[in-house]
């Protein structure tokens, strides 16, 4: 089975994969000041990675034309990351690995985590399931 390299710290580089939960809380007003600053920097420098599955989740959750307009802006300023067959297979392996450790992630979360690992980038999220997975020894974030 493929070994999983630890994710880098969520406070380091200019690029980061951003999960649906983080975007939603940004728009709902549930980010702290440091997180607001981080997201503003990602937008300004085009360093936010938008995995295809995150885009799909956000589209599914739309409730208004205004939300849709901001979603289009988000796509325009982000680095688009399509999913591949290899991502699907890696997510399957990740699911098995996590299940052995007692953590069950939703399919969409598995794909987001797979993309973050493939790119070797930190994952910004507001999701307890990710927190549980990332607390496991093999998935602990690196500190700079």
């Amino acid at each position: 089975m493929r070994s999983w390299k630890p994710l880098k710290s969520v406070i380091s580089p200019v690029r980061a994969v951003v999960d649906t939960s983080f975007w939603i809380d940004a728009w709902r007003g549930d980010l702290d000041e440091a997180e607001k600053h981080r997201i503003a920097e990602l937008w300004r420098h085009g360093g936010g990675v938008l995995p295809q599955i995150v885009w799909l989740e956000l589209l599914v959750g739309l409730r208004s034309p205004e939300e849709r307009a901001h979603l289009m802006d988000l796509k325009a300023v982000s680095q688009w990351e399509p999913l591949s067959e290899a991502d699907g297979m890696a997510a399957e392996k990740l699911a098995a690995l996590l299940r052995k450790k007692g953590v069950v992630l939703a399919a969409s979360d598995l794909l987001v985590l797979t993309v973050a690992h493939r790119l070797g980038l930190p994952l910004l999220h507001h999701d307890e399931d990710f927190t549980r997975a990332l607390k496991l020894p093999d998935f602990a974030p690196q500190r700079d």
Partner: protein
Amino acid sequence: MKMTLDIDAKKVEEAMAEYGVETKTEVIDLALTELLRKKAVERLLGSIGKFPAMMTNAELEAPEKRHLTRARGR
């Protein structure tokens, strides 16, 4: 779209050199893309916290979570 423009040649050449692009069309396209991106960033910065009624992540994941809970219960 084809069009005739009256623009500062020095600026065009400087931008082409700075960004390593080989045609005027390419550098104008790049400039427009960057202008639009900048505007999108401004709109996004103004959108933080503006949608308190947006569907939460828990609501979004609820159908799949129910499925996972059932699967684990089997």
